[in-house]
């Protein structure tokens, strides 16, 4: 295997560091990201090599920040890209695709991508204990991957989290730590613990590697479209990291000659109840103002997003747009996707589809554009969001006549 990682590099001042478990520049406190040796990677990474690889995100290993071949998370990635003809017809789009991470393995959200990379890298760096601060999908994924890898695991959650979400962690038997406080308290405590303990906090000290896993959504999209970049993508935004990494993924493929050209508009989606990035975009600002989240899209409820600035920069660079939708629009959009394409998305998916609808109405996405909407989590995880708006079953006595009467079906002779 080639030596593809050169260093970690500060996104602000450019200072370089060894590829260790550090995430913040010691000089300016800017975030670090992985710097690759693209010339070396170009020598070995081809469409043919990728196509002959495993049916998982590990087929793109040449552009992922790991050194060895002992991977954790063997089944993450390579999820279906669905040509959404019914939803496309409803919206007036000829070439709409859904990248369906509802069926990502093992925990049914896109987090399995980033966690597979994070834990593989954490083990390479010698960690035996992994941890995260989370309210849902991330904790599920870290817990499941740690269980399969035989690593110790600590999951930090706010004390008032819904019982179903707590159960989704406990089943894998990590150490689930409920903090007597709110999200901010969990946030602060985890940053402090990360500084004290030699643990791999996937979204703190392992973040430069963890975040790179999101690029695989772009790699797969391009491959599944027949080695081309889409004209438009719509991406849900929490910290904003996913959006920037999808852009980075397309640009890396272009740099390596795997894609001929990339002219993709990167569009971002948030919920109105937590839309610091989309609001900054709509107001023409290059900075965001933190907010207190209040939305049913809890997996996107990050009021002070770490990559918000970079997400705004990406939208500007790619000539994309950003918008936000209300909780009612989120629910309607979850139902629309389910009833047209048979895909039951979590609330973040409702945000993506809701903003897709808005962008079409605004004329930003054209009928013929090849458009990809990223659905990042499974609806079975957020059933409470739609439980009151999907109606009730028909209840009838066990008789044929009642059935026929209920559905107004004509009796056969």
């Amino acid at each position, binding site marked *: 295997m080639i030596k593809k990682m050169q260093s970690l590099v500060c996104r602000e001042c450019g200072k370089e560091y060894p590829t260790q478990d550090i995430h913040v520049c010691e000089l300016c*406190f800017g975030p670090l990201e992985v710097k690759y040796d693209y010339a070396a990677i170009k020598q070995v990474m081809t469409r043919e090599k990728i196509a002959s690889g495993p049916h998982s995100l590990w087929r793109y290993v040449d552009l992922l920040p790991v050194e060895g071949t002992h991977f954790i998370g063997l089944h993450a990635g390579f999820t279906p890209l669905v040509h959404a003809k019914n939803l496309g017809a409803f919206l007036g789009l000829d070439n709409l695709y859904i990248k369906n991470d509802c069926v990502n393995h093992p925990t049914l959200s896109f987090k399995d991508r980033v966690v597979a990379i994070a834990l593989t890298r954490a083990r390479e760096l010698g960690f035996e204990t992994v941890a*995260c*601060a*989370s309210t849902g*999908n991330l904790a599920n994924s870290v817990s499941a991957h740690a269980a399969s890898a035989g690593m110790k695991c600590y999951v930090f959650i706010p004390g008032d989290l819904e019982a179903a979400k707590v159960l989704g962690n406990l089943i894998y038997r990590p150490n689930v730590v409920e903090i007597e406080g709110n*999200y901010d308290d969990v946030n602060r405590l985890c*940053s402090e613990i990360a*500084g004290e303990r030699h643990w791999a906090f996937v979204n703190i000290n392992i973040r430069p590697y963890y975040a790179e896993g999101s690029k695989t959504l772009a790699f797969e999209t391009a491959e599944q479209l027949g080695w081309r970049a889409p004209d438009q993508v719509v991406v849900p935004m929490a910290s904003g990291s996913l959006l920037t990494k999808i852009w980075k993924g397309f640009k890396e493929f272009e740099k390596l000659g795997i894609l001929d050209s990339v002219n993709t508009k990167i569009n971002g989606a948030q919920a109105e109840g937590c839309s610091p990035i989309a609001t900054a975009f709509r107001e023409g600002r290059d*900075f965001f103002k933190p907010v207190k989240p209040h939305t049913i899209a809890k997996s996107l409820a990050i*009021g002070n997003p770490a990559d918000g600035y970079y997400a705004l920069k990406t939208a500007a660079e790619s000539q994309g747009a950003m918008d936000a939708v209300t909780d009612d629009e989120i629910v309607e959009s979850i139902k629309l996707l389910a009833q047209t394409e048979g895909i039951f998305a979590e609330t973040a998916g409702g945000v993506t589809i809701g903003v897709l609808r808005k962008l079409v109405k605004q004329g930003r996405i054209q009928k013929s554009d090849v458009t990809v909407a990223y659905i990042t989590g499974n609806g079975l995880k957020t059933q409470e969001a739609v439980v009151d708006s999907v109606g009730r079953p028909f209840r009838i006595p066990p008789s044929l006549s009642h059935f026929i009467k209920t559905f107004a079906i004509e009796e056969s002779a």
Partner: protein
Amino acid sequence: MAKLRFHIRYPEEKIPSPILYEIGKEYQVVPSIRRADVRETTGWMDVEFTGEADEIDRAVQGLRQKGCMVDPIELNVVE
């Protein structure tokens, strides 16, 4: 001595105030600004405080009492 790093955000009305100077006077901490962007309507700073851990905690509380938002340097890590 501890060294702790924070992202501090100022409300608009506090932009003209020498908040960091005041904190350095009121608590036994030494602030070191690494990056900052202060404008007419908003402002933030990435700052390292050096001092006893308890005193840094008190300084952070003091910043909050003055109306600032104080987060870990990583910003929001709960996902």
